[in-house]
């Protein structure tokens, strides 16, 4: 059951999006986040949504996978959507006790819902199509200027790589330990909340112990190979900025300018 979480899972493939340089994808995703919040009217929101759907289709990963990533934050989406319906200005459509629904509220709710869902799905595009190593490599390269301020960029990137790498390992381990404790009669599905939290102890303690053991083993193994990160270290896979990346950048530039143009010409509907 723990294995069903798809958030942040790499799915190998050969699509154009897969082949893009990790740096390009990171930069574009960050600018995408900025621009989806800059959308002021339905036209720009439509441009951005269509663009996201196009990118999602280009990854050639089933749309169900993206919907699944939405399921994780479904509560957040519904909650913010409902809240926004009641906080808005404009024509009153419905009023009962303290609650008023206005046209502005509904517009805001639609904007918030679309924005959060698109945000989640497009971030999934990044994590689905970029292997964890490429991702941290890309981040390391992008953060390189920070070394001037004595930020240990390489170390941070290494820690991220290791953390990502061990997520599936730890999930599998959790599964095993849960089974072992269930076999000894641990009851994790029934009982009050307090009882269920208590029932987690037999799972969490072995899990922590094993995580520390793995970390220790890994550190020893790295030291044995004289690992010495950072300077003068070469890479097995060098990130390459190619014509595909340039095309992608230009294409996104056009889309993003479209958003700005539509913002200027068609006024703003949303107040959030």
């Amino acid at each position, binding site marked *: 059951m723990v294995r069903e979480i798809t958030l942040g899972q790499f799915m190998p493939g050969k699509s154009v999006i897969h082949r893009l340089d990790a740096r390009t994808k990171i930069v574009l995703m960050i600018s995408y986040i900025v621009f989806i919040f800059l959308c002021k009217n339905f036209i720009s929101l439509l441009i951005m949504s269509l663009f996201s759907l196009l990118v999602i289709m280009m990854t050639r990963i089933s749309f169900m996978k993206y919907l699944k990533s939405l399921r994780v934050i479904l509560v957040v989406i519904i909650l913010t959507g409902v809240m926004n319906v009641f906080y808005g200005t404009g024509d009153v459509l419905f009023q009962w006790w303290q609650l008023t629904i206005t046209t502005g509220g509904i517009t805001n709710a639609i904007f918030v819902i679309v924005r959060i869902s698109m945000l989640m799905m497009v971030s999934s595009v990044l994590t689905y199509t970029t292997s964890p190593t490429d991702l941290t490599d890309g981040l390391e390269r992008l953060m390189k200027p920070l070394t001037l301020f004595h930020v240990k960029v390489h170390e941070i990137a290494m820690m991220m790589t290791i953390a990502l790498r061990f997520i599936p390992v730890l999930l599998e381990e959790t599964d095993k330990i849960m089974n072992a404790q269930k*076999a*000894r009669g641990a009851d994790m599905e029934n009982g009050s909340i307090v009882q269920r939290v208590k029932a987690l102890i037999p799972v969490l303690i072995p899990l922590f112990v094993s995580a520390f053991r793995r970390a220790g083993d890994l550190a020893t193994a790295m030291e044995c190979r004289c690992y010495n990160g950072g300077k003068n270290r070469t890479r097995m896979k060098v990130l390459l900025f190619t014509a595909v990346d340039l095309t992608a950048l230009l294409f996104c530039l056009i889309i993003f300018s479209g958003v700005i143009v539509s913002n200027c010409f068609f006024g703003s509907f949303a107040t959030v």
Partner: protein
Amino acid sequence: MAVIRTEKIRFVYGAGTSFEKTALTDVSFEIESGEFVGIIGHTGSGKSTLVQLLNGLLRPTEGTIFLNGKDIWEKPKKIRNIHFKVGMVFQYPEYQLFEETVYKDIAFGPKNMGLDDDEIDQKVRNAARFTGLREELLESSPFELSGGEKRRAAIAGVIAMDPDVLILDEPTAGLDPLGREALLSQIADYHKVRKNTVLLVSHSMEDIARTADKILVMSHGQKVMLDTPEYVFSKVRELEKIGLKVPQITKIMMLLKEKGVNVDPSVLTVEKGLNEILNLLSDANNNCSRL
């Protein structure tokens, strides 16, 4: 009477998803009460899935498992009782220790069964004795023990539930030869004293040959055979076809027989093989002196 009977069980991992994978197909067998059964098979042959089905951790996609004549999934809400009746020791069980003291950890199972303190105390001490854990270790932290002692403590935690059927998945993996030997003979002793049913999953043909009354051979999610060790290990060709071997000593005796030496090729343990060869030599000596 058969303590465990399976009827055409089939198990599919991730049924209904794109990762669907059939682990077992049409497995039917019976295990008599009090038998010591070895389960062998190549990696991925479905051994581990099978044992998890037997103690109710997994539910068969199709087919039925009977424990003492009753379908174990008759009342899905009461499946915990099956966990208590069919004790399961997983691979590398020492990684599941979590309590402050070894005593408390062994008592985890009996406590979940809802026994009173006196009964728990008795079961914990019995289990510790069966697995050869020294009394003074019971009050120390499980994380201070040596690897072998941890393994024993974890196995004791399952034995303490007094299961009718005890399943051990590769209990000797990662132990040194002496530790293996000791643990196996302790399990065999436990089986003799308690007279319950023991299922032992193992890669080591030697371990199985020495301890088991019967052997269940699995390959590609199917039962190949369930029979006595003598019979199973006489089917060298079938075993080799599915990537399994016979015990080394049996192989040697078979090769000797092929070369025309008059030995019994169904010998399964080194001790018996040694006797066989010594007998042969003394016979030969007698013949020589007669000439």
